[in-house]
């Protein structure tokens, strides 16, 4: 089986800092893959490279066996890769439903003006949006301003927002970050449900319980390169991984 999404030898520097130094990951179709690593290890930069927000200095991104390197964010999205952001990006002064309809517009380009303003298309989009809001569990907030949602609810809105376009792979940047434990479980449950319907995920997350419970494979980044990769039960007992988290030893004692 070849990976649906994979990167090879990605390098990316900002000034003199090597954010990514040969990062290679593989995400098999139909899996939930995890990407972990200490702060500054390059997780978000790798997300940005995959989704076209950053151009890598070297290396390739492949999606469905096609080269996707350096494609613009909208092209990446159109190819079937959706993402959420660490700090949610929603339109705070639009209602929750309006946010969803914005997502629908970017997905369904009008074939003609009639279709754009057509009643059928509009009701279809609304119905679809409400279904997705119901799926993530915030349908009762459809008519409130998105800015008034709690942080956890915004994360759910972002997930629903990404689902509008029905991408094949969804990249989630810290879906459980800053969210209360009950909601963390709910988010994990929604991801599992989507996965059981065939969605593929790549998840960056610091909450170990969440990531270990959810993902079938985990890749660990350290200083922009892969320190380890494998199933959670191996990762959580891997000394190299702990070393990555505990940081560099300043007094290398040569033995």
């Amino acid at each position: 089986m070849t990976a649906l999404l994979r990167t090879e030898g990605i390098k990316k520097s900002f000034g003199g800092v090597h954010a990514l130094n040969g990062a290679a990951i593989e995400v098999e179709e139909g899996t939930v893959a995890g990407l972990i690593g200490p702060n500054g290890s390059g997780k978000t930069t790798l997300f940005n490279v995959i989704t076209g927000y950053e151009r890598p200095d070297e290396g390739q991104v492949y999606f469905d066996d096609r080269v996707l390197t350096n494609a613009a964010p909208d092209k990446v999205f159109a190819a079937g890769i959706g993402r959420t952001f660490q700090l949610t990006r929603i339109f705070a002064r639009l209602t929750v439903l309006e946010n969803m309809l914005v997502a629908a517009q970017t997905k369904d380009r009008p074939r003609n003006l009639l279709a754009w303003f057509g009643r059928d298309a509009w009701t279809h989009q609304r119905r679809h949006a409400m279904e997705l809001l119901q799926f993530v569990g915030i349908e009762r907030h459809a008519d409130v301003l998105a800015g008034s949602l709690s942080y956890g609810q915004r994360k759910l809105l972002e997930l629903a927002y990404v689902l509008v376009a029905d991408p094949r792979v969804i990249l989630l940047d810290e879906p459980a970050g800053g969210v209360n434990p009950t909601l963390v479980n709910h988010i994990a449950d929604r991801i599992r449900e989507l996965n059981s319907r065939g969605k593929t995920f790549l998840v960056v997350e610091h909450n170990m319980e969440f990531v270990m419970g959810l993902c079938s494979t985990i890749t660990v980044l350290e200083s922009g390169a892969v320190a380890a990769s494998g199933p959670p039960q191996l990762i959580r007992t891997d000394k190299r991984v702990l070393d990555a988290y505990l940081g560099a030893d300043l007094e290398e004692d040569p033995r």
Partner: protein
Amino acid sequence: MTAQSAAPALALDGIVAGYGGGDVLRGVTFDVPEGSITCVVGPNGAGKSTLMRVISGLLRPRAGTVTLFGEKLSGRSPRAILKMGVVQVPQNHSLFKDMTVRENIDLGGYTLSDRALVTKRMDAVFDMFPQVKDWERMKAGELSGGQQRLVEFARALMLEPRLILLDEPSMGLSPMVLRSVFDAARAMNDNGATMLLVEQNARAGLKLSHHGVVMENGIVRLSGTGREVLEHPEIGELYLGGAVKSSS
């Protein structure tokens, strides 16, 4: 009265604190003995930064008390806490980049009205960090990240603090530069400074420190000497949610 051991420099007792609806700290208790370096480590979201905000007075705890040499500190304003002798070196670089190094250090003593005392303290600080003296006429913004950290340390010493809070001093520094910054921290401690350090590089931070505290999910999970904590078998579980086997 019977003889009693002196109060610790800093004592945290049952601290509960958070933002909005949730508690980030859920009952944190530990001491920082006078003259020690105590290091707090823990995975992301453990509550380390929130703890710093409570001690420096930026966040009021919902329950529990913080005392400095037996005197209650919690509930006071950041300014009052500074006056009590608690100085923080923040995580992000905090120098005024367009001002000279000397001007920046001078600002460290802005609460002192006695100019002669400011000059005397500055000389003492320069004695301790001669390299900082070499940079005194340079603009702070022209220094590297590690050099700026040393200037921040020097500035913190201007008030002869009774407790120095170091929030992630390793942030953004390469291992080589980090070593010189940690050497400077050790030098301050050798000179008598009591320090509480919050550090992401757990290994380096714990090795520097006399005492180590591992926080996870808002509570203290492990404490002991720096080395005991670092070598504790449970530390892997706290960071990765699993017991770590040695692969060597």
